[in-house]
């Protein structure tokens, strides 16, 4: 194999299969914070990129987007959903796993302000993005939504450590404002903020955020959550309908511009 010449053809760092070790596992209410030591990964994850993580006893890996990548350690926020994620969050510290990484594309850095609209574990890639943006000197607004106050530990863990003020919305009003986080986004954009919109969460939330971005003529990006097998473009399971034809979330995404997605 001939080595690529980075000057001529700057391209994504190539993924490989990395041995990782769970070095911390902490409950954040309905979510679990996992820290993986990943010493062999030379590339740095970009915010929005993901890894495909093995889970003992399961034939498929699970795609997860880090909330931080620092000093050879990758932080994940996992919400137990089906059998695989349930087994994953129960693994003891010290467990060795395998991770394909880094996979997919990442969020582009905005010219100026950024508005982050998330819910649940969508906070993971958004917090990674927020940290990246703060370092780059960008202004960051965060709107986080939940059913009730169950996401308090999550928000503290991933956003508040950055010194960010999070506007919190809950369906029952038990934390922050009663309502949905897109209401905060609507007000921000209505106020004329020249923010780029980023949303990760349930499909309905991302669609609502996308509509607001389009309505206000702002750039917007979402990370689409599609069932994946290979994670690297080989199985064609992660089809996404876009205005430019059918794409595949694991290699063409998971991040897509909101105008490109056929909602």
């Amino acid at each position: 194999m001939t080595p690529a010449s980075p000057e001529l053809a700057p391209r994504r760092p190539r993924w490989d299969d990395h041995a990782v070790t769970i070095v911390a596992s902490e409950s954040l209410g309905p979510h679990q914070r996992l820290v993986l030591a990943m010493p062999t990964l030379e590339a740095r994850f970009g915010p929005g990129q993901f890894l495909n993580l093995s889970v003992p006893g399961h034939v498929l890996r699970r795609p997860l987007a880090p909330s931080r990548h620092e000093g050879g350690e990758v932080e994940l926020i996992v919400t137990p959903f089906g059998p695989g994620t349930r087994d994953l969050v129960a693994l003891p510290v010290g467990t060795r796993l395998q991770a394909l990484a880094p996979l997919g594309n990442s969020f582009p850095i905005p010219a100026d302000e950024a508005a982050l609209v998330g819910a649940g574990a969508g906070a993971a890639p958004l917090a990674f993005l927020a940290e990246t943006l703060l370092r780059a000197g960008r202004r960051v607004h965060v709107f986080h939504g939940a059913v009730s106050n169950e996401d308090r530990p999550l928000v503290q863990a991933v956003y508040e450590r950055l010194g960010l003020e999070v506007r919190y919305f809950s369906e029952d009003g038990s934390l922050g404002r009663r309502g949905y986080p897109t209401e905060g986004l609507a007000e921000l954009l209505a106020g004329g903020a020249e923010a780029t919109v980023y949303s990760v969460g349930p499909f309905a939330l991302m669609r609502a955020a996308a509509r607001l971005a389009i309505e206000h003529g702002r750039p917007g990006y979402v990370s689409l959550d599609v069932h994946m097998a290979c994670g690297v473009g080989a199985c064609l399971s992660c089809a996404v309908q876009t205005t430019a034809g059918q794409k595949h979330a694991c290699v063409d995404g998971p991040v897509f511009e909101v105008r490109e997605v056929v909602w």
Partner: protein
Amino acid sequence: MNRLEVDFLGVRFPNPVVTASGTFNFGREYAHLYPLSRLGAVTTKGVSPRPIAGAPTPRITETPMGMLNAIGLENKGVDAYVADELPWLKAQGARVIVNVFGDEAADFAHVARKVSPYADLIEVNLSCPNVHGGRLPFAHDPEAAAEVVRRVKDATDRPVLAKLSPNGPLLPVAEVLEAAGVDGFSLINTLLGMRMDLERRRPVLGNRQGGLSGPAVKPVAVRLVYELYRHTDRPILGMGGIASAEDALEFALAGARLVAVGTATFADPYAPLKIARGLEAFFQGRGERWRDWVGAAHTPD
């Protein structure tokens, strides 16, 4: 001495471990991990005459030690692959098995003709629906399947494998295909299955049903390879749940001369290579060769 070398219909394979169709695309995604020439062969994603967009998502879901897929035969059509992928794949030094399908017999022949310059073997996917036969899979309609084989044989000088389905009768179809001139068989394709989403009270997959693969199906696959081997003298490419050298050896004993690794590649992209290495170590340790094991479970005690 290469203990794994195997002749299959006149093609020399340095080892018997090939990738399974649809799980390795055309190899490009994995080519930076290891030279594709180290594999027995790459079997391509299924190729049809025209592009196909595929099924609605979700297209995959996991099941106990298996997975269901309903990709819906998405592919870019034969012209794109002949232009972009097959010449590249051949240039990697890999042996190539091209998996072909279509709506009717002429489609299969059309694709086979176009891909022949790049193919060491042609694998005919008989599990796809026969559009002019009430959308019954070709594999369940021996006459339609035989017509496919005859047309493909006429269209190519490459050896032709019929890929059989475990969802219908096997031996009657194999018999008819032998008469139609098929050179060998590959099996199993996936078992039809379903998983329900309890939240939505609906099937998980966009297509409702999907094809089951992975370790869960291995006992069924070993059984069918064993039964087919008793019935035919044509060589067999066996697959279904192979994830280790031991699994590959089970298929050899049952009668598979080549073996394919599919789902296991999703769990470990190095799986086909590791399995070939595992076999090498196994036979080295015993002073035996792969081909001594092919069909060995059939020899009298």
